[in-house]
């Protein structure tokens, strides 16, 4: 598979948040502030790259009937490593992400990429796919985080913007759903317009 298309797939075509709708729980829970969304995204990216790499290297060794157990062990190892490192060096972010950091173990994006991609592709391609999917997840989470933080608290990455009355509802769970839904609608509208255009172009070319 071409490297370019892997990256494009991970970030745009198969964007985990807006196209595959995977990992919704941490997406809604931690994006109350942009920095939390960014940190969660980077954490998942790290685990995705490492687990995809290892799973891909071990893909011929792991017996088919226990592959999920093997994947989970690999993923859990990297998540625990990440947890220990974050607890020591980034205690504030560690506290902000709370339970959603250890829950990366059962994040369906990571398991999905291990099962669907890493288990049948080469190590370099798999690591690249992990990176691209992670970047897609990070960008989506940061975007949701920025919108919720700006509307909900009048700040961006903790910097005060001097806006008028913030709408507290946006940092609450309800606001998370609203922003997520609105963004998903937007992404769907844009992508259907693009695919329509492609169809039309195709027809024109045929004619």
């Amino acid at each position: 598979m071409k490297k370019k298309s892997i990256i494009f797939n991970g970030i745009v075509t198969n964007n985990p948040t807006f196209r595959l709708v995977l990992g919704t729980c941490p997406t809604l829970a931690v994006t109350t502030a942009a920095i939390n969304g960014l940190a969660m995204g980077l954490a998942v990216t790290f685990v995705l790259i490492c687990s995809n790499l290892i799973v891909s290297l071990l893909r011929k060794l792991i017996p088919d009937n226990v592959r999920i157990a093997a994947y989970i062990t690999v993923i859990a190892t990297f998540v625990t490593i990440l947890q220990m490192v974050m607890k020591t060096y980034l205690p504030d972010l560690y506290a902000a992400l709370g339970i959603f950091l250890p829950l990366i173990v059962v994040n369906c994006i990571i398991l999905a990429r291990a099962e669907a991609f890493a288990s049948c592709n080469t190590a370099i391609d798999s690591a690249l796919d992990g990176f691209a999917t992670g970047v897609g997840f990070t960008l989506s989470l940061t975007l949701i985080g920025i919108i919720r933080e700006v509307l909900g608290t009048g700040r961006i990455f903790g910097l005060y913007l001097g806006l008028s009355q913030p709408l507290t509802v946006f940092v609450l769970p309800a606001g998370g759903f609203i922003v997520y839904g609105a963004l998903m609608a937007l992404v769907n509208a844009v992508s259907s317009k693009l695919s329509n255009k492609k169809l039309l172009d195709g027809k024109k070319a045929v004619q």
Partner: protein
Amino acid sequence: MNSTLKTVLVLSVIALFAGLALGVVYFFTKSESSLPDAAALNALAPADGYVQLTAEGATQLEFGTLKSVCVPVDGNGKAVSDSFIFLADGNGGFSGTISMLVLITDGKIANVVCYENGETPGLGTNALTDTYLSRYIGIDITNDVVLKGLAKDYWSKPEKESGHENDAIQIDGYTGATRSSTAVVNSISTIHSYYVSNAESLLLQLNKLK
């Protein structure tokens, strides 16, 4: 049979390497200082910083374990008062030990907060309310009548065996949570016993910081 063996072997090897990797990372990231959490310390005794003291002597005592001792310091790292902060686990809680953080100033208990506990919210935690804990404030830390530890089966033994019929007159607080309050008493009692037997070493270390 062969494939089963292979399955077991592969999973074991993966788990072995996972464990090894975790061990290495743990070795490099484990925290060097065993100071209690800064937020809890600040709630107990606001200060610019805290300096850990070496806990000499036995820390595993009859009614609990002394976890750490530190002193509050100002911005220049100097101790400003005769204060110690103790963290101790008290035996006998309903689910595990209860950790209490105690500030001792001039030999008297100046503040008490719960550091960690696994007690049932609304039931066992009745022994951790401010109203109850504030009863400890002002008690002389060397007072071995009030700060006496209680054995695990203290309240379940017949009165004559454990001797608690004689203690009836000493009850001056009621929490409704027998085992949780026992663990609180034991934690503070541990600090009391440790302080009594190691006061010299502690004061010596404190004076060095002045």
